[in-house]
């Protein structure tokens, strides 16, 4: 199979004689022809790139990590975001960089006796936090659980009865637990996600490289990835935005519940709490001994989900009775 096809291995057959110049030219032409074909083929295969609409601006490309931005650079970044939002959604947003408050550590407590599984929190969250409507991104997942078990495999994620609550079931909403020992933060290769002083784990959407390791690491399935360009109807944009909170995200980055940073760091309650018709959701500062959450944690039968994984959530479930 070999041997017969090897031709002369001596010196070039045409290395002497007057036609060598011609040969050189011919081989040069052939080479450049080949090269041109190659470049054309590569260009043709890259053609889909012409549809690229959401190009990264130089400014965004070069922007540093959130924690390294000087106040000036932060102002510039906020400016850029304002401009981008205005261009895309024809609405002038109010984008702020809200810092954690001193002496505050946020904690959430959810009363499973009261939750009726109406999913109002899910939709309030989507509206408040400018989540993509198509494809749909939701931070809160409500599980319909049969009474008598905590095996989540028995939970129903897609329940859709005429009316809730249904007999024989209880409902368990799950969102980011703002873990004290967050595995998502540990695995991120570029520190694009970290825990702030007030206990909120945030994401710098301009720094995340979209490796989705954090998504695999989270034991509560709290993280959501922008698999494509998020789409939000212009008239549904919430213009009250925070850098680490609900400003619109780009394609290819991670997001998740951040306890409504744009609200809670400005002294308001999270959107999911405000909308809850049964008062099942409680939120507050655990460092304040007189807060409602402090009372609940001291006096109710409280538990956390998957205690065995050692994440130490700041999201507690409790029963009234």
């Amino acid at each position: 199979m070999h041997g017969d096809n090897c031709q002369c291995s001596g010196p070039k057959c045409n290395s002497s004689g007057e036609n060598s110049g011609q040969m050189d030219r011919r081989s040069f032409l052939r080479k450049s022809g080949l090269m041109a074909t190659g470049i054309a083929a590569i260009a043709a295969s890259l053609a889909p790139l012409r549809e690229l609409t959401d190009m990264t601006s130089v400014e965004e490309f070069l922007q540093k990590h959130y924690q390294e931005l000087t106040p000036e650079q932060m102002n510039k970044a906020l400016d850029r975001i304002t401009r981008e939002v205005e261009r895309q959604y024809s609405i002038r947003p109010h984008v702020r960089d809200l810092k954690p408050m001193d002496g505050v550590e946020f904690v959430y407590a959810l009363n499973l006796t009261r939750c009726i599984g109406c999913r109002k929190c899910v939709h309030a969250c989507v509206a408040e936090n400018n989540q993509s409507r198509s494809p749909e991104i939701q931070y809160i997942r409500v599980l319909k659980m049969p009474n008598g078990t905590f095996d989540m495999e028995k939970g129903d994620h897609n329940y859709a009865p005429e009316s809730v609550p249904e007999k024989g079931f209880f409902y368990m909403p799950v969102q980011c637990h703002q873990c004290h020992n967050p595995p998502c933060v540990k695995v991120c290769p570029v520190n694009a996600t970290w825990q702030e002083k007030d206990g909120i784990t945030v994401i710098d959407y301009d720094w995340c490289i979209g490796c989705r390791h954090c998504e695999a690491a989270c034991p509560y399935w709290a993280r959501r990835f922008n698999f494509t360009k998020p789409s939000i109807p212009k008239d549904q944009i919430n213009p009250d935005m925070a850098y680490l909170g609900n400003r619109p995200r780009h394609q290819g980055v991670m997001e998740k519940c951040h306890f409504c940073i744009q609200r809670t760091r400005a002294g308001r309650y999270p959107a999911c709490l405000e909308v809850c018709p049964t008062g099942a959701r409680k939120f507050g500062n655990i460092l304040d001994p007189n807060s409602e959450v402090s009372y609940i944690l001291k006096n109710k039968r409280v538990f956390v989900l998957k205690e065995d994984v050692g994440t130490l959530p700041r999201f507690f479930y409790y029963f009234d009775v």
Partner: protein
Amino acid sequence: MKLIRDYSVFLYRSGCLAFRGDWRYYLWMGFLSVLCLVGLNAYAKQIVHGLIVTGMSDQVSWGVYIANFTFLVGVAAAAVMLVIPVYIYKNEELHDLVIFGELLAVAAILMCLAFVTVDLGRPDRFWHLIPGIGKFNFPGSMLSWDVIVLNGYLLLNVHICGYLLFCRYRNTKPALWFYIPFVFIGIFWAISIHTVTAFLYVGLGGRPFWNSAIVGPRFIASAFTAGLALIILALQIIRRVTHYRIADKALLTLRGIVQIAMIINVFLLFNEVFKEFYTGNLHVASANYLYFGLHGHHALVPWIWTSIGFNLTAAVLLVLPASKSLRWLDLACVLAIVGIWIEKGMGLVIPGFVPTPLGEIVEYSPSLNETLICLGIWAFGFLCYTIFLRMSVPILQGTLSQAGENAPEPKESSNTLTQPVS
């Protein structure tokens, strides 16, 4: 200075070889180039529309990209199974073959890097990963370790191969201090690339299917099996399409090593299956899904049983004396490669996500676009390996050397690489 000049001439001259060959070589290279371009085209689409063009979802957030990556890290690591016998046990037959293993490692790492890149949602921000310039979560994040060990391994192998070939080209004796230390570092480094890659999974406490101490050792055992099997096949192709002589004895030595690696691999698999199913606690859900299906979902079941069938057949073949004949050995190698590819890829990555930590079952299967990108990257890898061989075989045979620099080039080299490498 002169050295640098010489080295560039060496690179240039061997690089030129990559463009020369007979019609079969051109056909093979043309075929691979077309596949690469098809993959590039698919990737361009993915850049525009995002990872939505893949089969992945929030529920199953890693797919075949990471599966192939995992498998190929193993292939790259397996080169040490040639290095150890040669440099530690002074095995003579394998001595000249080490370089082919190391070149395969280089090609495999290049593919790994490509697979990681296409998996990123924001490849434009890759510079965030560069230590010093970006912000590198080291040593906390296993992924940052992986970036270091993979690139380090690439550099080590490029250095060793480049230096040894260069010396052969100049017909000088390689200076021991300039490559032996790297060879030994490379041995540990090879183990580390695989261990660190295993730790990407093992470190996730919320995923019981991965969070088990045996995953690391199993990674290494299966990597050595599949990687060496690939090397055995590659060597046979080399000796068929070039005039490079490779003794049967060398192949049989490799068979001995694969044999043991395969037995260990099957043994560890058995351990894992026992632990999952004998205790039968709630954490067995993923394994159940993989082997038997869960609540009416069984996308992976045919895959994993095919894999187990292949692995066991390969193990039996390797143990039987029949595989002393190369035909049976080849069959065993092919079965082992496919079996382990399925097991390390689909069998390890996907079930970790099913069910989700909240008990939801969403199945995954790769989309067409995703598959095309994978094919493109594999073609790219084969292309690289073919070029490496095209450059190195004439040097090893002495037909391309510094002495011949000023002499006219041979019109047609006696080495043609026209066969698929695997």
